C-alpha cells in the first residue's frame, strides 16, 4: 500500500466517522424504540395487512394485565408486564400479527386454540403446549433483541412475529 492510498484511506475513514457522528441520533441504539412499559402500538405500516384479526381491539394488547400481574404495580421504574392474547379458531388467528416491544419487557403470550397444537417461538426457542380449548400462557422476558417468528407446529403456519427493539 503506497502513501497516496494510505492517505485516501485515512481521509475516507475520517469522513465516514464524522458523518456517522453527525447523523447519529442521541438515542442511537433505539431510534424507533417505544418508551418502556408503554403498550406496544401496532405499527401503522403493517396495520393494513396484518393477519386476520377480526377487529382491531383484540389485536391491541392489554398493557398491564389488571388481575394476575402483581409485578406490574411494584414500582414505576420496573418495566410493566405486557400481555398479548391470541386465539385460534377454525384455522383462524385472532390477535396481533406483530408484537413490538423494547428489550427487557416481561411478556405474556396468552393463547387459546380450538385444536391441540404447539406454539414455537423462534430464536428464544420456546415452545408452549396448546391443549384443545384451553388457554395456555407463555411467560418470558424479551431480553434478546431481534425479530422472531412464532408458529404453530402442527398447522405448519407462521402466525406472527415478535420484534424486540434494542433498549435505549
Amino acid at each position, binding site marked *: 500500500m503506497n502513501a497516496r492510498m494510505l492517505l485516501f484511506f485515512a481521509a*475516507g475513514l475520517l469522513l465516514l466517522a464524522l458523518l456517522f457522528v453527525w447523523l447519529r*441520533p442521541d438515542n442511537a441504539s433505539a431510534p424507533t424504540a417505544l418508551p418502556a412499559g408503554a403498550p406496544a402500538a401496532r405499527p401503522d405500516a403493517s396495520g393494513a*395487512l396484518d393477519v386476520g384479526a377480526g377487529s382491531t381491539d383484540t389485536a391491541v394488547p392489554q398493557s398491564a394485565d389488571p388481575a394476575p400481574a402483581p409485578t406490574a404495580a411494584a414500582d414505576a421504574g420496573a418495566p410493566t408486564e405486557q400481555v398479548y392474547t391470541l386465539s385460534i379458531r377454525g384455522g*383462524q388467528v385472532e390477535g396481533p400479527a406483530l408484537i413490538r416491544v423494547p428489550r427487557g419487557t416481561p411478556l405474556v403470550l396468552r393463547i387459546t386454540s380450538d385444536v391441540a397444537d404447539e406454539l414455537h417461538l423462534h430464536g428464544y426457542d420456546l415452545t408452549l403446549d396448546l391443549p384443545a380449548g384451553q388457554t395456555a400462557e407463555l411467560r418470558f422476558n424479551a431480553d434478546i433483541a431481534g425479530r422472531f417468528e412464532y408458529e404453530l407446529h402442527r398447522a405448519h*403456519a407462521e402466525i406472527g412475529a415478535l420484534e424486540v427493539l434494542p433498549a435505549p
Partner: protein
Amino acid sequence: MRTLRALAAAAPGAALFGVPQTALAHSFGKLYTLPVPVWLYLYGAAAALLVSFLVIGYFVGTPQAAHRNFATRPLPRAFEWLAAPAAVRVLQLLSLALLLLSIATGLWGTRNPYANFNMTFFWIVFVLAYTYTVALLGDSYRVLNPWQQLAQGASSVSRQFAVGRYDYPQRFSYLPALALYMAFIWIELFGNVRPLSLSVLLLGYAGLTLTGCWLWGQAAWFRYGDFFSVFFRITGMMSVIERRDGRFQLRQPFIGLLRERCEDFSLLLFVMFMLSSTAYDGMHNTVPWVRVFWQDLKPLFEPIVGTDIVRSFPVLKQMYFVYQSLALILSPLLYLSIYVAMIAAAKAITRSPRSLRELCLDFGYTLVPIALVYNVTHYYTLIAQQGVLVIKLISDPFGFGWNLFGTAGWLSKPPMLDVGTIWHTQVALILVGHIVSVYLAHIVALRVFVTPRQALLSQLPLLVMMVAYTTLGLWILSLPLQAGVMVPK
C-alpha cells in the same frame, strides 16, 4: 377496507391452512435481523456518495495507480501440499460423500428440517458459508464439484458422458445456467423444501447433470449449464488467492474480477440476477411490497374476480403467487435497465467509439462485489445461528439419536449476535462493496476509454448507478417486514 376485514372473520381455513408459506424469508433457517433504522440507512447512502468521490479522487492525476495493484506474491511452499493429487482426491471424496450423505439423510432420516443434516448442510453451509469461502480463498468448486465427479464416474462407463453426443449450441451461451439459477432461487424462496424434497432435488440435479454431460459433454455442461459452477467461478474471482505458475499466489482482493471480461450478455444477466435475487429476497416479504399487490393491484383484478373477497380469495392467492414469482424472474431486468442506461450515458459523454454492448460487457464484473455484499448482509447471521449447528448434526445426521463424534450435545444455545452489531455490520459491508465496485469500475474505465479525462467523465453516470444500487440495497434492509401469514383483512 371493510370487505378486507370481513375476510378474516368469514373465510375460515383460508388464513391458516390454505396459504402457502410464502412468508419465509429464506427456504430454511430463520433470520432474526430487524430492519435497519432510518438514520443508519441515510448514513449509508450519504456515505456511499461521499466515499465514491474520494475513490475517484484517488485516481485523478495518477491513472497509473491502477496498474500497481495486479502484482501477486507466492504463498510459502508449505501450502503446496493442498494441491498434491492425493490431497485433492481426499477432498473430492469428502465432497462427494457429503452430497451422498445429504441425499441419504433426506430419504431415510427425520422429517424435521432442523434435526436433519441435509437442510442445514445444503442451505446454510454449502449455499452460504461455502460461497463466502470461495469469495475469500478462490474457486475450489472447480475441482471439488461433487456432480462433476458423478459425471466422471459415468464417463468411465460410457465415453459419451465425457465428450457428449452433440456440439453445444453456442448461441445458448450461459442461458441454461441462468435458467437453472432462477429455478434454484425460486425453489429456495417458494419451494417450501423439506429434507425429503431436498434429497429428491439433489438426485434430480444429478440426473440433469448426467443428461447435460451426455448431450453436450462435460466441458460444455460445467461451463454453460451447471449454475453452481458459473456462480462459484464468478464469486471466486474476488478471492485473495489464485493458482498461477503452479503455485498458490496471494493477490489483492477483488482484483481477479479485472483479469477476465464478462464474455457474453447472458453472463451479464447472470451477474444481474446475483444482485437482484438477493435484493428480491429482502424485498418480497416487506410491508410496502406486499401492499403493492393487496392494495394497489387488487382493485385492478376486481372486474375479473369480483369484489367479494371471500369468494375471490383463492383466485387472488394464486395471482399473488404469480405476482411474486414473476417479480423474481423479471427482477434482473430492473438492475439491467439501470445499468444499460448509465453505460449508454457514459458512452454519450465520452463519445466512445465502442459499441454499447461491448461497453456493457466491459463493466459487467465490476458489479460482483455489490452482489456479494448484498448476499452477505442478508444471510450471514444464518451461519452464526444455524450454520454452526452442523457440528452437532454431523454426529446425528439422520436424527436417529446417534452421537457418532460426540458432538451431538454441543451448542444447545447457538450464539446470537446483538442487533446493533448486525445493523452496523450490514451497513459497513454494503459500503465496502460499493467502494470496491466504484474502484474497479474506474480501473476498467481507464482501460476502455482513451484518455484519463474520458475515463473520469465516464464515472459520473456509473457513480449514479452504483449509488442507486447501494441505496436500494440499504433501503431494502430498512423496510418493515410483513408479519404472519399473508391474508388481507
